[in-house]
């Protein structure tokens, strides 16, 4: 798992549209104690999906404690309240509930699915995981070993090597620059007290956003929010500083024994609250975001057979933004593929998009809007994602208008501002022919 993939997920959520054709009923529910959640009622299947996210995340790791937030989140289901990890697991199974706990740099998340019939018991169990995790030493040691195994695995994973190298080069002075799992040294040194501190810092009421979808009413949800979250501390660690992007254009080759090279490339991007974000989004769809139809796929895969897949994506995060892309290509074809990427990047910056391409992109993006409304968990995630990005509750009604309002001139302007083939940095993991670390060839 890499920050890149996490960022992709976040990106997806920000633009996932809703049931535009049908009436979208998002209710804002405020609990008796003042905790708010966004709710979409969907009574046709007797279960509830919740997505609870806390802004801050692994960026809040204290100095020398990298990995604490990640390990802490992994331990929430390993025993809570009067139940050790076995009792907790048995209780979860008996309810057929599903709980997920995850950490990213910008946030930590708790996902839950439970049957309507078992709402009270499922919520009580989740409350204990959130509020009274045990952090038993045996569980800490076992899960720590699993994290260390993941770190060991990452050392031989081309995608991880590329993304962690790119992150380190881009953000040398910010938590974004280091893997949130930590290093073997930091993870081995984490104590129970460190985990308690991470828990205290990350899970606070002033940073929480909640999305709920399923077979539950607003009246039922209010008190449930207080049960789950009401006893959390009001506030936590100080805000995370902004990150400065420090990477210049060029090429970094990491030797790795493989017939293919994995290539990650990018430069600075655009923040989600930028007024030109929609223009950038539509532009990226045409350049490399739109699957088979994108320019990158057409030129690198369809016409030349240089890769199985290539794509680009905007990565707006809370404290920095990147614009990135990735592909894998045989070692003898990697240089050619990189040259084509740079060429397409330059052409887009110079010429923008055709009226036809823009129309096709808009038709797809707005037409796909009602189709993505796909399942309770996904909708709960969308609701939380919207709140995390400070989008208004009526965002869904305006989203397609925002896409349709993008003009050729808007795209030209954002392409000129954003795209810079000379600033692209390519991290290549493999044994590519005719490529070595340093400046990019002219072109």
């Amino acid at each position, binding site marked *: 798992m890499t920050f890149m993939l996490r960022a992709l997920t976040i990106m997806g959520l920000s633009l996932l549209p809703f049931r535009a054709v049908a009436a979208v009923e998002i209710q804002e529910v405020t609990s008796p104690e003042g905790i708010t959640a966004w709710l979409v009622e969907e009574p046709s299947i007797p*279960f509830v999906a919740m997505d609870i996210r806390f802004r801050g995340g692994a960026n809040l790791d204290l100095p020398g404690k990298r990995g604490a937030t990640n390990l802490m989140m992994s331990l929430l289901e390993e025993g809570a309240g009067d139940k050790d990890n076995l009792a907790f697991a048995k209780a979860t199974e008996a309810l057929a509930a*599903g709980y997920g706990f995850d950490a990213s740099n910008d946030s930590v998340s708790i996902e839950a699915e439970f049957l309507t019939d078992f709402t009270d018991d499922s919520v009580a169990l989740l409350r204990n995981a959130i509020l009274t995790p045990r952090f038993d030493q045996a569980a800490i040691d076992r899960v720590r070993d699993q994290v260390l195994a993941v770190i060991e695995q990452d050392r031989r994973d081309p995608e991880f090597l590329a993304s962690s190298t790119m992150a380190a080069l881009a953000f040398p002075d910010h938590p974004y620059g280091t893997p949130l799992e930590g290093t073997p040294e930091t993870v081995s040194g984490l104590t129970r007290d460190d985990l308690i501190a991470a828990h205290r810092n990350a899970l606070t009421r002033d940073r929480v956003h909640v999305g709920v979808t399923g077979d539950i009413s607003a009246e039922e949800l209010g008190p449930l929010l207080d049960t789950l979250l009401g006893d959390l501390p009001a506030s936590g660690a100080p805000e995370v500083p902004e990150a400065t992007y420090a990477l210049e254009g060029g090429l970094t080759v990491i030797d790795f024994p493989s017939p293919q090279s994995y290539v990650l490339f990018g430069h600075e991007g655009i923040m989600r609250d930028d007024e030109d974000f929609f223009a950038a989004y539509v532009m990226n769809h045409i350049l490399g975001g739109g699957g088979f139809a994108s320019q990158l796929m057409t030129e690198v895969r369809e016409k030349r057979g240089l890769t*199985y897949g290539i794509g680009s994506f905007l990565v707006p995060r809370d404290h920095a933004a990147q614009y990135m892309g990735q592909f894998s290509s045989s070692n003898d074809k990697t240089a050619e593929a990189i040259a084509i990427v740079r060429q397409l990047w330059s052409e887009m910056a110079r010429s923008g998009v055709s009226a036809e391409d823009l129309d096709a992109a808009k038709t797809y993006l707005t037409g796909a809007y009602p189709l993505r409304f796909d399942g309770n968990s996904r909708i709960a995630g969308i609701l939380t994602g919207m709140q995390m990005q400070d989008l208004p509750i009526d965002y869904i009604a305006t989203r397609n208008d925002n896409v349709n309002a993008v003009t050729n001139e808007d795209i030209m302007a954002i392409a000129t501002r954003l795209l810079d083939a000379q600033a692209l940095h390519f991290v290549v993991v493999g044994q590519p022919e005719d490529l070595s670390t340093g400046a990019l060839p002219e072109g």
Partner: protein
Amino acid sequence: MFTRPIATLAACLTLWSAPSLAEDDTVTTFTLPNGMKGVVIEDNRAPVAVHMVWYNVGAADEPPGKSGIAHFLEHLMFKGTETLEPGEFGRIVQAQGGSDNAFTSFDYTGYFQRVAADRLDLMMQHEADRMRNLVLTTQEVLTERDVVLEERAQRTDSNPGGLFGEQRAALQYLNHPYRIPIIGWRHEIETLGLEDALDFYEEFYAPNNATLIVAGDVDPAEVEALALEHYGPIAPTEGLAPRTRPAEPPQIAPRRITFEDERVSNPYVIRTYLAPERDPGAQEDAAALEMLSQVLGGSSATSIMGRTLEQEEGVALYTSAFYSGTSYDDTTFGLIVIPTPGRTLEEAEADLDRMIVKVLEDGIDEAQLERIKVQVRASEIYGRDSLQGRARTYGVALTSGLTVQDVQDWPDILDAVTEDDILRVAREVLTLETSVTGYLTRPEADVEATQ
């Protein structure tokens, strides 16, 4: 990571409404005069439809020496037809805001679009068109072959676990084509050409070898009428041979393999046994094997392997048992142990064997079995949330030789499994004579250097 412990079960179980699924009135079927089957799954929550065509042909049906042709053809199906430019169908789907893709397995090849429900007509029109009217040029075929070689390089050749899996399958099956990778052996992919693709296409891409599945906000009668309009006129392939593959001889000796690769991070031992698959009207043994996999290695906290090796003894980083019962021919039941650093694979294998003995000698905790069944029942409710998942469940089952009734009976059969059933199939299937034991590891010097 968000996992429900019963994830493997949920994958093959998307329909079950207490008290009984056999009465699920959201699923209807029809058969066109030319032999094409249809399944309609109604779900009116959102104005969306998933349209799928599944062909009863996969990698295990390829002619000798042409490995990878089923999958290669799947790629080529996105080129043009007599009336559409290459890639145009995809652009039409996109212009509707839809998405499309395809997939190839041993036993099936499937194509799907996800669109607004009122665009179903258009999707059928073009899917029916490419069932018979594909047009390919040599240049397209050669370029796409490079894409497939890159796909193989990415998924298999760059992945020690992928290469290891290929070697293990080739060892598990001496004679049956499940021994050959779906994507094909590299040296054979490199020789595949236009004629190979067209020969395969003309024989197998026919209405009497296909199942249409439509799920979503649709009316079954309208779907059937549309299917008759678009797929009905297509002539069947006459004399399509029954689907028989070379059968395995009895396995009479354990087989072993050690695969070393410097890219391996956490060495592991994996054991697979030849096992029966779900058969039409006779799914009881498969159900017991499915439950055995959950009991032995479903949950890392409460299963026998997870509880003992990961939690109590601390000798494994990860353990699991797995069984893929939905298959046309004999399948496998497997166990995996990733030992904690410092333990050898020989010790991990002994741990694995010890767990088999443990379940056979100690029997199964009644409460554990009941908790697994609770999750089986719940997985129906959760499963109803995914349109595509439901459609896929039927597609995989029907192309694996099962019927709609079998799919609907499956949850009840799982629920009826007893401890005796599980122990019986465990004794029958978990025999070393029919097993392959594999070690995936790094070259020795490398392993020592990092520990």
